[in-house]
């Protein structure tokens, strides 16, 4: 066999021929397509049934993950440098602004598409047995989406982010029992949940580092884990729900 043909075939194992066996093998043998079963219900894949919303949520997450990873190259989570890094991204780094825009808009899209996906799942009763717990995981994914957006909001360290996070974390201060200013509070300002999120009593360097960690490692890690579980359970429940 020609060496190039051998190389090609080692990567793309099914060739171009079309037959039922080839179709099945193409799905089974591909890392990404293998998320799907080899054959799917005809009703379930109608575009008006799912509107691709779940897939789009995952797609937007992948876009934010890739652009976010790239942005990390030019970003320093330091209160003296963060804002300057943002200006650099806008003015000095070629395609820096483009990457930041993509990251932000894909995140916005995710915050829109995830609730819409939930709406679709609700309207088609797809949370019913045996998919109950997968819906709960989905609620976890929704929470992760919001938390990721919120933690990312602080990182540019501009007026918008500073005051939005001030408002957000003062709510934590007002948590009943666990917040210093909330009803029935038992913890002081140096032990309550606001301190825990800020890493201090005011929004400063420790806060930026905490949010940076949560935004880049903690929450995406949790999100990916939950996503894997979510997809796995979709398959185990027999794929996309369909009329019984």
């Amino acid at each position, binding site marked *: 066999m020609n060496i190039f043909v051998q190389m090609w075939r080692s990567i793309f194992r099914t060739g171009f021929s079309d037959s*039922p066996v080839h*179709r*099945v093998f193409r799905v089974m043998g591909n890392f990404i397509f293998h998320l*799907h*079963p*080899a*054959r*799917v*219900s*005809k*009703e379930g*894949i109608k*575009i008006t049934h799912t509107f691709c919303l779940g*897939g*789009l949520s995952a*797609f937007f997450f992948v*876009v934010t993950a890739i652009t976010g990873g790239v942005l990390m190259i030019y970003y320093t989570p330091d*209160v003296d440098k963060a*804002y300057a890094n*943002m*200006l650099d991204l806008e003015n000095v780094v070629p395609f820096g602004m483009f990457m*930041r*825009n*993509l990251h932000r*808009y*894909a995140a916005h*899209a995710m915050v829109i598409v995830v609730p819409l996906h*939930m709406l679709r799942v*609700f*309207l*088609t*009763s*797809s*949370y*019913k047995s*045996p998919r109950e717990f997968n*819906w*709960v995981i989905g*609620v976890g994914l*929704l929470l992760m989406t*919001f938390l990721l957006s*919120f933690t990312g909001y602080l990182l540019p*360290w*501009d*007026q*918008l982010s500073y*005051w*939005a996070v*001030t408002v*957000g974390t*003062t*709510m934590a201060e*007002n*948590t*009943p029992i666990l917040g210093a200013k*909330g*009803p029935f509070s038992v913890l002081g300002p140096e032990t309550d949940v606001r301190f825990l999120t800020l890493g201090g009593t005011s929004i400063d360097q420790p806060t930026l580092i905490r949010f940076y960690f949560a935004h880049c490692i903690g929450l995406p890690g949790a999100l990916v884990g939950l996503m894997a579980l979510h997809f796995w359970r979709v398959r185990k429940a027999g794929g996309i*729900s369909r*009329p*019984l």
Partner: protein
Amino acid sequence: MNGKTETKERLRLLTVIREEALLRQRDIYPKEEKVDTWPNLVVKELICMLIFAIVLVAWAMFQNAPLEELANPGLTPKEAKAPWYFVGLQELLVYFDPWISGVVLPTVILVGLALIPYLDPDPIKGVGRYAIWNRKFAVFCFLFGFTMWFALVAVGQYFRGPYWSFYWPWESKEIAKQTEVVLTNFPLPAGIAFLAGYFILGLIVPAVAFQNFFWRLGLLRYHIAMILFMMMMLVPVKILLRQAFHIRYILKTPWFNI
């Protein structure tokens, strides 16, 4: 383990697998028409992804993400708004104390959402299709909350100007609003009576009026579902009380206010 038990073990496993497969085939999943994933589903996913990739790239090329001045802890901007997806909660802060709209309500929303599959009494109705008219109450609850969330976001985002005053889109936000509405509180007994009456009536009336619904859910499911429902409805009730009757707090105690 000797050979005999090993065989039995394998037999047992096989039985379990076979039984599960049979169950799936026979009870839950009737026969259905299937098509190959490749190319039928994969093509649709590809088109969908490409369309939205183009939209994203175009959006990112023609509009830049905002960046304001460097963070300044000593100067709050005239319009301090949360990110748009939290503006709904910020809008609620007008009507409720921060511990309710910032902590209790989001928690209740998330817990309520997570409980949906366990509160729905019917395991089959409407699965896999848009059977909206067969599930009126469930769909109403979800759509009501869903719409309220986005309506609050829209109001907060487009109708609120400096000092969180209400501005119509055609009004200039430069002109400061001088609306000093004097707010009153319910007296303590009236507040307790109102809340207690609200929840007790909200639990009893549907149970009596829709007995079929009550018995289908059972005691525990019914109470959890209705308490969550009444909490959701408390939000528009409070908004109405504030806007129409200038009520600040329904219940005012030394420890907390609702």
